[in-house]
């Protein structure tokens, strides 16, 4: 068992679940951060960034690390996955990476990666990931290999039966994706978390080289009592373009952080997402876009449909450095609450130091329009169908991507 440094003055004592021996590396900034500050809590350095997503309850679990399952078992898991989500086979031209419990089960065109990405104290989950001895891989996408399909699953049956003892399976991975100069890449990321009491914590680093474009499509669904964290850090070079489209749903807790650095002129990014938490689900979209150089553009659009007692969060920031003149940065977040107990928190932020920019932000939270429903019912649609059609129309705006098959899958996943 590790001993925590509790001698911090300004910050509260760290809250952390009991981590298994040997999980953390011996040294490094990330290790310092996670041990010093622990999970986000009131008054910790990340308190503001995690204001609406409390994960203190994670501390009551003892963490177990799932072992890599055998090749035969992996085949079974893969087979089950194909049966439950047949669309996975709709991408035969993609390079498929199958991760089970954070362990990679396909080894093609991919190399281990030993780098240590930068992390600060506002990102405790990323710090935990980087401080951990988990699998880390690096892959390059270019004309030859333009399409990557990352599949992450948890092998629920293989976890020990002692769940009553408040143990939780922690699966982590790190992936660094290089998009080569002037190439056009597509990343499809499917994480279907069907098992309860699992804690997934991934870190992605995507570097879009000069003149390259990358479309990153994320499909995610979470099981009740599961905790799912992803942090993606994207660096875009001159004339590079990155588009992120996510469709998140489920009854568990999910936090997706996307942080984009527009590091050179004429770089552009679009972060779009639709989310639908159900039951007591909780989905948190946190984005940060840094305009470091002039003539870059960014566009963030998130749309949520929140049911039952679920909670949806959008926390978005656009930062425009003094040097980044002629920046165009737009940010919009809309949510529909479908029940009296559903909640939404939106926090759009602009921090602008340049004086010649076009930036906007907006946030709306509302409910379905009764007049629209009556209009549709007066034309013969049932209440349910009318509602579904209006929700589809609402979410559609945030679900566009160039890759046809991905677009179909995105829509099928969330509508």
């Amino acid at each position, binding site marked *: 068992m590790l001993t925590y440094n509790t001698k911090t003055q300004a910050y509260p004592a760290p809250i952390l679940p009991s981590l298994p021996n040997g999980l953390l590396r011996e040294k490094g900034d990330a290790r310092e951060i996670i041990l010093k500050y622990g999970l986000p809590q009131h008054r910790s350095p990340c308190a503001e960034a995690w204001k609406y997503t409390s994960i203190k309850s994670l501390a009551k679990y003892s963490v177990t690390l799932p072992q890599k399952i055998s090749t035969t078992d992996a085949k079974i898991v893969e087979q089950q996955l194909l049966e439950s989500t047949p669309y996975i086979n709709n991408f035969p031209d993609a390079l498929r990476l199958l991760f089970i419990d954070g362990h990679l089960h396909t080894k093609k065109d991919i190399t281990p990666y030993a780098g240590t990405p930068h992390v600060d104290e506002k990102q405790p989950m990323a710090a935990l990931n980087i401080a951990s001895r988990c699998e880390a891989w690096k892959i390059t996408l270019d004309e030859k290999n333009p399409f990557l399909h990352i599949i992450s699953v948890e092998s629920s049956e293989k976890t020990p039966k002692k769940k009553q003892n408040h143990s939780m399976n922690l699966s982590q991975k790190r992936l660094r994706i290089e998009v080569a100069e002037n190439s056009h890449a597509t990343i499809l990321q499917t994480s279907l978390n069907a098992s309860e009491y699992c804690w997934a914590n991934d870190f992605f680093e995507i570097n879009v080289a000069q003149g390259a474009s990358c479309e990153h499509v994320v499909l995610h669904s979470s099981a009740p009592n599961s905790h799912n964290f992803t942090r993606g850090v994207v660096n875009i070079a001159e004339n590079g373009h990155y588009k992120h489209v996510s469709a998140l749903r489920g009854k568990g807790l999910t936090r997706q952080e996307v942080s984009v650095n527009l590091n050179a002129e004429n770089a552009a990014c679009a972060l779009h997402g639709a989310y639908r938490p159900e039951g007591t689900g909780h989905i948190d979209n946190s984005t940060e876009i840094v305009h470091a150089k002039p003539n870059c553009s960014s566009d963030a659009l998130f749309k949520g449909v929140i049911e039952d007692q679920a909670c949806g969060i959008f926390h978005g920031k656009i930062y425009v450095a003094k040097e980044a003149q002629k920046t165009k940065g737009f940010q919009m977040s809309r949510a529909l609450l479908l029940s009296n107990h559903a909640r939404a928190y939106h926090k759009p932020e602009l921090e602008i130091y340049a004086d010649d920019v076009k930036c906007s932000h907006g946030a709306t939270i509302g409910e379905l329009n009764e007049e629209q429903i009556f209009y549709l019912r007066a034309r013969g*649609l049932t209440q349910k169908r009318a509602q579904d059609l209006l929700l589809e129309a609402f979410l559609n705006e945030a679900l566009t991507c160039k890759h046809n098959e991905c677009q179909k899958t995105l829509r099928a996943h969330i509508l």
Partner: protein
Amino acid sequence: MEYLLKVEELHARIADDDDNPDSEHAKGILRGISLNIPKGEVHAIMGPNGSGKSTLAGVLAGREGFEVEGKVTFDGEDLLALEPEERAHKGLFLAFQYPIALPGVQGMRFLGEALDAQNRARGEKQEDKIKQVKRVRKQAQELGIDESMLKRAVNDGFSGGEKKRNEMLQLAVLKPKLAILDETDSGLDIDAMRSVANALQNMRDGERTFLIITHYQRLLQYIQPDRVHVLLEGRIIQSGDKSLCEKLEETGYTALLKKYEDDEGQVNAYL
């Protein structure tokens, strides 16, 4: 005679509006309407602002928010017991006074959904999608509607005239037994009104039945109604043939109301 629509002593008031029992609202918006429309006829309801015209249309189509009493029989069925969509399935159509915008719902998709829902409810075979699109396009053309309107989101950013024409297209495509037109002529210029009137005139085939609600007699000059009813303060105070609407144009509603009061001595005029 067999009536397609039979309204008997229909009362309606805004639900949960009982703060002051002496208020005009508490007395109700519709105060005992009786109206019979035989199949295939065109009836018009005229009346001034606030007389209850749109409430009548809304109550017949199943709009929520009213406390309704009375009896309405539509094609042999108790209309008031049906949900709005069931009324549509039975063949009742309301052309909205203010058609609602549906951002993100494409016109053709909307019509397709409506057609499929109605076919399904009636136990009819689903129409082939390609045939359906072709048919709707043709009908749009006949109404002088540009095909591009079918690709736009329903009523989203439409002009007043476009919205009303779009309602006419829905009416033509859905082929209801009874169409209630709630002030379809309001807000239209003369050309647009003429094109709406022509569309209605073309649909008038002795089978379909229309209830046209309007302020003005202009639309009725194009469509000669079989019967005209005057609605005042939630009651039909006079019915007659089309000459009634010409008379109204001369005398105005106030004179008619005064005469009615003198005759009946029971309506509290507040005009």
